[in-house]
């Protein structure tokens, strides 16, 4: 009996939500389509996985053969492209200021002479360090060219001295370095940025959905109606009879206008009409004045002596069923895109998916908690934005966690995204054994359950305070 009551609450709540989403295209878009578009958009932005041909300039004051070789090497480097030769420093500076080029390589006057006389012949790279990404890539590229040039010059010098070419290469660099990038070896930006930005954005969107799904019931003063609806069929029939149906935007305007004129300013009237929650009930439209009875009907429902926690919990699960379904599906897509060519163990993908699902659910509940805590959808959304929007910056992906200032580390540790991305990178990119990431999964699971309980408790509190509903 009790079990059927709980499943009834779940099903009724899901049906309530389904009808709402059906009638409100904006909300349906937020729940279903925007997350899908976001996943695809981010993947598309980074579809060119390598940065190539960054424009640089060259000032060649030497014009010798080695200098020409240097220019050729620079242009041949996959990350660089010599946009133009400049003849004065001022010209080059203006080009940098206009962002025609991001760096200029200066080959000094005595470059060839120094090389011929076995002296050190430096190249000078002036790089626009304000553009950090561009600057880093250009520095590495030009550094490589300088290294190649050096090797060529020295090995030739040693051969001239009579050394065998193979010996010369060793003598040039007695201890060479093999640089190996253990994971993400091709420095693929799609792997590095897109696959971590997507969960970050889904986290933001899920918190917004979490705040909105319960927050609009508070704003529209429908929370009691919702609970009544999921708790018993009786309450549903009583309530729905009082709600006028299917009134279009313009009609609602005139309806509320007439309410204003008649001097009977009843907040519930406007709510029920404007917000189209009315769509839930029978199509028989009633006069705005008659809906005023709502007030008297709703309060007893909301202050029902027994708000059953089990019913409330299952009702909440039902209310968030559609967002969970949508975000669960798009999470599969996100992980499918993020799975690199090299095989990732299916257990790793499964663990990551579990982590992402938990992150999504946790985000829903967190959004709901901020909204219920403040009794205001607007405040819930403000808190959501404040916490989730910059969380990627604190997560330690672009700027490493170990370099984050100590005080900010506490904030970073408190963000669920930080932990999920740690798991994501370990499992999807570093091929770590699943066991290493299990503590993160447990942590996310515990946080999700706690947040869910807290949401239910706060909903109970909100039901007990109908006088605070309707805050904007």
């Amino acid at each position, binding site marked *: 009996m009790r079990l059927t009551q709980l499943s009834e609450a779940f099903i009724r709540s899901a049906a309530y939500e389904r009808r709402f989403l059906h009638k409100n295209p*904006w909300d349906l878009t937020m729940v279903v389509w925007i997350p899908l578009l976001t996943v695809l958009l981010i993947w598309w932005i980074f579809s060119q996985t390598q940065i190539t041909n960054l424009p640089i300039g060259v000032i060649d004051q030497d014009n010798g053969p080695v200098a020409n070789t240097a220019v050729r090497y620079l242009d041949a480097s996959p990350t660089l492209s010599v946009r133009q030769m400049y003849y004065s420093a001022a010209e080059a500076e203006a080009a940098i*200021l206009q962002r025609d080029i991001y760096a200029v390589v200066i080959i000094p006057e005595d470059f060839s002479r120094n090389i011929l006389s076995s002296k050190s012949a430096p190249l000078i790279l002036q790089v626009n360090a304000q553009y950090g990404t561009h600057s880093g890539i250009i520095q590495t590229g030009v550094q490589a060219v300088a290294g190649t040039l*050096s090797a060529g010059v020295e090995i030739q010098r040693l051969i001239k001295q009579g050394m065998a070419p193979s010996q010369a*290469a060793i003598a040039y660099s007695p201890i060479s*370095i093999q*640089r190996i990038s*253990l994971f993400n070896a091709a420095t693929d930006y799609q792997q590095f940025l897109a696959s971590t930005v997507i969960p970050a954005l889904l986290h933001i969107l899920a918190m917004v959905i979490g705040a909105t799904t319960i927050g609009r019931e508070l704003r529209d003063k429908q929370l009691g109606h919702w609970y009544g609806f999921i708790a018993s069929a009786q309450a549903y029939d009583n309530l729905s009879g009082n709600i006028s149906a299917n009134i279009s935007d313009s009609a609602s305007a005139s309806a509320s206008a007439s309410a204003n004129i008649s001097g009977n300013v009843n907040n519930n009237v406007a709510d029920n009409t404007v917000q189209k929650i009315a769509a839930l009930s029978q199509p028989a439209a009633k006069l705005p004045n008659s809906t005023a009875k709502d007030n008297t009907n709703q309060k007893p429902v909301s202050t029902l002596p027994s708000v059953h926690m089990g019913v409330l919990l299952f009702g909440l699960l039902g209310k968030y069923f559609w967002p969970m379904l949508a975000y669960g599906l798009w999470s599969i897509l996100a992980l499918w895109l993020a799975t690199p060519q090299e095989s990732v163990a299916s257990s790793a993908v499964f663990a990551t998916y579990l982590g992402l699902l938990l992150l999504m659910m946790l985000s829903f509940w967190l959004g709901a908690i901020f909204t219920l805590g403040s009794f205001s959808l607007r405040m819930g959304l403000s808190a959501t934005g404040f916490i989730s929007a910059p969380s990627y910056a604190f997560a330690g992906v672009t700027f490493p966690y170990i370099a984050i*200032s100590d005080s900010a580390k506490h904030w970073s540790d408190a963000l669920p995204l930080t932990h999920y991305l740690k798991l994501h990178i370990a499992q999807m990119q570093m091929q770590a054994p699943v066991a290493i990431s299990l503590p993160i999964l447990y942590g996310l699971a515990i946080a999700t359950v706690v947040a869910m309980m807290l949401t239910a408790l706060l909903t109970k509190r909100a039901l007990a305070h109908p006088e605070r509903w309707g805050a904007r």
Partner: protein
Amino acid sequence: MPPLSTDHNAKVTQPQPPVQGFFASFFQTLTDVFKDKGIVLMLIIAPIIYGFFYPWPYSSEVVNHVPVGIVDKDNSDLSRTIVRYASASPQLDTRRFLDEQSAKEAIWADEIAGYMVIPSGLEQNVLSGKAASVSVLGNGGYFLLNKNVQMGFLKAVSTVSAGVKIKKSVAQGAYAPTAAQNAQAVPLQIVPLYNQTEGYGAYVVPAVSIIILQQTLLMATAMLIGTWYEQRRHQTSISGWLGRITALSTLSFLIGCFYYGWAFELHHYPRGQNMLGSLLFLLLFCPTVATLGCLLGLWFRQRERSMQILIFSSLPMFFVSGYPWPADQLPTFLQIVRWFIPTTPAINTSVQLNQMGASISQVATGFYALAALWALYFALLVWLRWYNAPKRRQVS
């Protein structure tokens, strides 16, 4: 009509004709902004908090003392020299591991960011003039860390390698100082311009500030217009709209000055290279964003919707702006579409003026683009006004 707060209710009860004139509309907007907690929070308080909050993780600016591992399988004088040089590097913080497996496990556990393997027989190979190499294994999953690990080890090993070379050259009869000079025939001298310390915060925060300014102003404006729409107070004359836009952009302009004059100063970012140009930029940027906000408000038609739709959009907008990611690497379609967002010209223009010190003529494209966007948004606003209010036009 949904009630906002008690003072808003009062307005609902006596529907008033919308204010029409420029100045009346200007002051009405200011009054409504300051009467509404939600809009004050979004328009004024949020950007000020973000001015402190966003630069917070980057306060150390440069990544140093990255924890790394060393697996020394050679255990010779030479390998110990390499280890000593590596641990002396300010970029690295070294730890010894017995074998590669334990080093790898430390990477997975996020204890180290990479490690170097010195193979056995290194010293012997070097002494007998055979090819010898060490391996540096960085974690490609984290770009910035990987660069640090590679560079730190590279410097340590190159120094030792150069030492070996010099010793050999000297042994072969070369004069020591000449040999030392030859360590690298073509050294590279890198001169970082503008952001001279190459700090991460100094790179990212000036650009993100423009995103913050845009998003808070967009959300606040759309929230205000959406609220007015719910109260059916959204309609006004063209000069009325101009008054509203002026009021909102004035407040946002002041916040922009807070960033330029104070927030950047506080964090010691490069700033104020062309202050007059920067202020002119804000004078154009704020109205452009405010006009877009009005447009979005008329589209969203609900108080909270601007936040629901706009909160997540900051990151994608940042990535298509061309600042953190070169714009010509974007798909062609996105390269065009991105120009409909104010931050696309704005981030680069602001950085070029304020951080790099470009002249106004050098950023003319950005100014033209912002002016064109403003004209486009305003034309759409005027069209929407005409399209949405046929009844009012007949009456008047």
